[in-house]
């Protein structure tokens, strides 16, 4: 995983359009130079977009499962709890002040949940993200969670806007 600080850019960034960086499942990216961070195909997965209103540092993580405690796996970005922690830490390292970070979250749909008892993974992902963000005192200033449809996200890090796209409805801007 890389932190984009504008020092190692390709020629493409000379264009007027900001650089676009894809974030895969169980991955995260942090940018300090206004890049657009995107992630696609969130079902029960959840995208956590963090934005430091003071420095403009932005980060996006695409997590899959609620808690790292439940599964043996070394990839922190795969889980709602450790993924959120990781993103906050990486943003701080890139110069963000945790006190001025705001969160926007989207995803956590309960489509295709076949579990018959208890709440589904989508719900549990959302609850875990809320809990972890609260531990850091980071407010959630926008959200589009639950429901039974998929989402794709676009975090415009020059403004902190999170655009949520669905297959069957219009875009929402958080």
């Amino acid at each position, binding site marked *: 995983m890389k932190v984009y600080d504008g020092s190692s850019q*390709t*020629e*493409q960034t000379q264009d007027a359009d900001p650089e*676009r*960086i*894809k974030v*895969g*499942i*169980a991955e995260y990216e942090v940018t300090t130079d206004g890049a657009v961070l995107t992630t*696609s*195909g*969130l*079902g*029960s*997965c959840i995208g956590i977009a963090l934005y430091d209103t003071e420095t403009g540092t932005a980060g996006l993580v695409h997590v*899959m*499962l609620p808690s790292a405690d*439940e*599964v*043996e*796996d070394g*990839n922190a970005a*795969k889980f709602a709890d450790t993924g959120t922690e990781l993103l906050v830490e990486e943003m701080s390292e890139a110069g963000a002040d945790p006190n001025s970070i705001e969160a926007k979250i989207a995803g956590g*749909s*309960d*489509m*295709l*949940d*076949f*579990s018959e008892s208890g709440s*589904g*993974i*989508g719900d549990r992902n959302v609850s875990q993200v809320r809990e972890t963000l609260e531990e850091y005192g980071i407010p959630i200033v926008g959200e589009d969670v639950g429901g039974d*449809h*998929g*989402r*794709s996200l676009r975090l415009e890090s020059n403004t902190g806007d999170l655009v949520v796209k*669905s*297959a*069957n409805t219009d875009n929402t801007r958080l």
Partner: protein
Amino acid sequence: MKIDVQSLGTFNQLAHEGAEQATRSMAQMTGIDAEVDVTKISLVDRADIGEELGDSEFVGVQFEFEGALSGDTVLVFDRDSTDEIVNALMPGAAEDPSMAQSSVEEIGNIMMSGFIDGWADYLGAGIEHTPPEYIERSGADVLPEAPDTGETDQVFVFRSEIEWLDQSVNFFIYMLPEYEPMTEMMSEHAAAGDDAIPIEKLEAFNRMTRKGTEKAAENVEMMAGIETEAEVSQISFAPIEDVPKQVGNDTYVGTVVEFTGAPSGYLLVLFDETSAINVAEALMPMETDGDGLTDQHKAAIEELGNIMTSGFVDGWANVLQQTVEHTPPRLVHDMGRAIIDPLAAQLGQHQQHAFIIDSKMKTDEVAFESTIHALPNEEELREALDELLVERAEETEADAEQIF
């Protein structure tokens, strides 16, 4: 010969790191930012290799390698994307065919050396490779002939798909090791634990999947009156977080069921929207109300998904001599990756890697294509294969003809 899930995971990781190394080499040379999207190891019928390349034109380089592993490997670029790569390396070179070719060779050589060295390092043994040979062909023809495996028509293939960040242009690395040394090596790396899978059984399972797909295709034919062919069936292995990437990001229509028994898991039948409309209209006697995908289309797809699922699962149950039951189909109409993501997540609560069974069918009569994806619980699949061995001890060679 047995392989275990651990070594499948290790080899997959090795191919993935090799592809990343190759991609970094290219980024350093050209300044083009690209990323390895997905790497998977598949057991596939020789005839089906490269099917996903479609009819596009490709250029690239091919190497033979030998030593601890032998076989062929290729790196291919979509023809349309080479100009940019070539010009990034040497401005203006794309205008001159011979310069363009030598640039592709040079990039290919550097990328693939990294890829092969990664394998040699891990295996702690030398792997020699020939100089790059420039290739220029369309679709699957760009790939080297699959190594002759003697007794079986199936081969292991490592595939990495690499994507440019700013454009939807992909390139691919394929590695086709010779079957014997590859399986020997995998079995050497297998821990002596309980999670070993006899390779022959995996092959039998793969053949069974093809039978299941054929049965599903027959069902479509009977119901819709469209002559339908089973095209591909393969079993792949990938980290759970790569599972959703097996499906594109376009919108799909289809059905999903959970199946229970041994093994349990999920089965998806997916149609792209155009295929869904075409096949649904072949099923429906009346005109539809409104444009595009209507509720009537969806109802027809639901019914079709149901009979395809039954056809597929029946074949499976027969071979495993198990009852495999499934829930009623749930209709889905959403982004492909978002459909499969909750299923991968549900499996991911108990396993780090997943077996993915992919089948594809299509027809020449109308524009129609459908894919079936099964995601079995990994541990239960292993047990089911084991069971197959115990119950058919006299057929340890897993002769598919006898089983079916």
